[in-house]
């Protein structure tokens, strides 16, 4: 019997259309897998069993009746708990929203429902997406399926781990400074942060509004492309949404896999490598460059000198915006209330009890960066840095069609290793942050395992704003070469998890 959890989303879609499997069978196979391994992985905060099976049954009935269905109809998906979902609890990994049932659907949730995709559940994340390891989730960390003692990345560690553990073929993530790409890198999966505005943020619980972007997560480049096309598009409910057609991601992926990369200029960012990058990470990166060369690409070196300021600017802008966005958790309209005599005392007690340490650190930091006398030195400077980084990208993209780097400096570290050292934790995202500051799209895809520890290494591709399709073209070409070399996908090489009943 076929183990459908090992198939790609597009293989599932083809099998559904050919009638060799039903959506109910697909959903049940994934629910069984979740029941078997999620006790150890903890990718899910909520499993949506009944609704997922009901949606699957309705898709099967419509298909039997000859109804014309969307490409991914009947293919199950996991959703990061940052997106509001009517009828399913939404917590953003925070105790302050424990048990909250949103009264509406995010635009992306609606699009998933319109695409007739059964929602398997809500995935774990660092509280309000603040973190790189899921250790800041109020509900306990997610474990990396490659080694349960290690971090799955963050903030979207739940979504990435659900893919690597074969609990879901597709997942939604959100990327403010790398929260899609870094988890993809450390779990051997694929993730894309679209151009800012390419996917509606309506109903995504805001962290830093000028940086946040929702995006697709999957195990293959083509699956990621197919989900990107479902999620993307203009939305009047999000004033920053781009009024442009959805990029042709799937066509670009097919083009890259079929026609190679002749004439494509690939820029290696000098500042995103070298010292501080693990030897095995550098080795796999260099080998990936060889594959790109063999596919016809020209490799050039580019320099982005202002990237030295990127981390500082990010950790000024993000806390500043978060300190404003999280003001809504005030015990009045939803979520936790710790009752005191006055409303101000109630707010202080509620937020003390409802927020974890990382959220408190960043809210204090944001309050400081925006306070009188310090605003120009911190927030004002950080905004100038954004301009300098955008200029660096403009200059680099004159020399190259895409830019590349390792996604993260190291393979996944051990749970607990950096949880009390915020600055060390922040260094995880050194290579992913510049894209968010500039609003450009980025992808991480697996480039093998580091020889010294056998853990996954991610390869990052960055493209100019609005050129998301390029990520898929280059990513698919590289994936094809790597999978041919490995004799299978990287995900299939992860150690088998023990299944409990």
């Amino acid at each position, binding site marked *: 019997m076929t183990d459908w959890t090992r198939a790609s989303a597009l293989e599932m879609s083809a099998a559904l259309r050919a009638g060799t499997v039903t959506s109910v069978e697909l959903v049940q196979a994934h629910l069984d897998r979740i029941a078997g391994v999620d006790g150890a992985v903890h990718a899910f905060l909520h499993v949506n069993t009944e609704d997922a099976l009901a949606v699957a049954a309705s898709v099967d009935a419509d298909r039997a009746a000859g109804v014309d269905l969307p490409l991914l109809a009947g293919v199950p998906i996991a959703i990061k708990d940052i997106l509001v979902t009517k009828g399913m609890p939404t917590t953003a990994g925070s105790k302050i929203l424990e048990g909250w049932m949103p009264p509406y659907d995010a635009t992306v949730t609606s699009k998933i429902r319109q695409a007739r995709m059964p929602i398997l559940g809500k995935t774990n994340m660092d509280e309000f997406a603040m973190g790189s390891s899921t250790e800041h989730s109020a509900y306990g960390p997610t474990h990396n399926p490659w080694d349960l003692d290690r971090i799955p990345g963050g903030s979207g560690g739940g979504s990435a781990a659900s893919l690597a553990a074969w609990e879901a073929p597709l997942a939604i993530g959100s990327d403010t400074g790398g929260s899609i790409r870094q988890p993809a890198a450390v779990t051997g999966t694929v993730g894309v942060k679209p151009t800012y505005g390419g996917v509606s943020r309506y109903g995504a619980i805001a962290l830093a509004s000028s940086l946040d972007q929702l995006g697709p997560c999957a195990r293959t480049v083509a699956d990621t492309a197919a989900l990107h096309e479902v999620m993307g598009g203009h939305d009047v409910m999000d004033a920053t949404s781009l009024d442009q057609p959805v990029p042709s991601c799937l066509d670009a992926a097919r083009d890259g896999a079929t026609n190679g990369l002749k004439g494509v200029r690939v820029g290696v960012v000098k500042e995103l490598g070298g010292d501080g990058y693990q030897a095995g990470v550098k080795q796999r990166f260099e080998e990936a460059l060889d594959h790109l060369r063999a596919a016809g690409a020209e490799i050039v070196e580019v320099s982005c000198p202002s990237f030295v300021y990127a981390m500082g600017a990010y950790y000024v802008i993000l806390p500043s915006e978060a300190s404003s966005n999280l003001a809504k958790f005030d015990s009045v309209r*939803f979520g936790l209330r710790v009752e005191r005599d006055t409303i101000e005392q109630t707010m202080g007690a509620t*937020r003390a009890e409802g927020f974890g340490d990382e959220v408190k650190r960043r809210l204090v930091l944001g309050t400081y960066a925006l306070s009188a006398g310090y605003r120009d030195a911190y927030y004002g400077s950080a905004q100038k840095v954004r301009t300098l980084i955008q200029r660096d990208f403009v200059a680099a993209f004159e020399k190259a069609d895409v830019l590349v780097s390792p996604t993260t400096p190291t393979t996944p570290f051990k749970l607990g290793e950096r949880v009390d050292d915020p600055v060390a934790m922040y260094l995880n995202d050194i290579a992913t942050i510049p894209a968010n500051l500039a609003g450009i799209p980025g992808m991480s895809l697996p480039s093998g395992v580091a020889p010294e520890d056998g853990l996954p290494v991610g390869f990052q591709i960055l493209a100019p704003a609005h050129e998301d399709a390029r990520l898929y073209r280059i990513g698919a070409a590289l994936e094809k070469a790597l999978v041919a070399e490995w004799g299978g996908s990287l995900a299939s090489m992860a150690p088998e998890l023990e299944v409990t009943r």
Partner: protein
Amino acid sequence: MSHLSRADVARLAALARIDMNDADLDRLSGQIDAIVDAVALVSEVANQDVPATSHPIPMSNVHRVDEVRPSLAQADALAAAPEAEDGRFRVPRILGEEA
């Protein structure tokens, strides 16, 4: 280099409406100061003549059609409130003792 004292952190936490006791301040002040130290590099560009970027993709005058559309029913909006009364959110008193 120290940027923020324990007293500074206590004051900022109060502004952010987060109660912090001595144990919280013991645990968090040093970490927050270390973060400020790590980001302080950005102030190097404070005096450079560079325009600020607040938003990565420039857009202006974003409007949507002004039309009546369905919105949340009052009961749905109040359903998750910690406390509601007469169709409104109910909160503890908002004025101090002397009022």
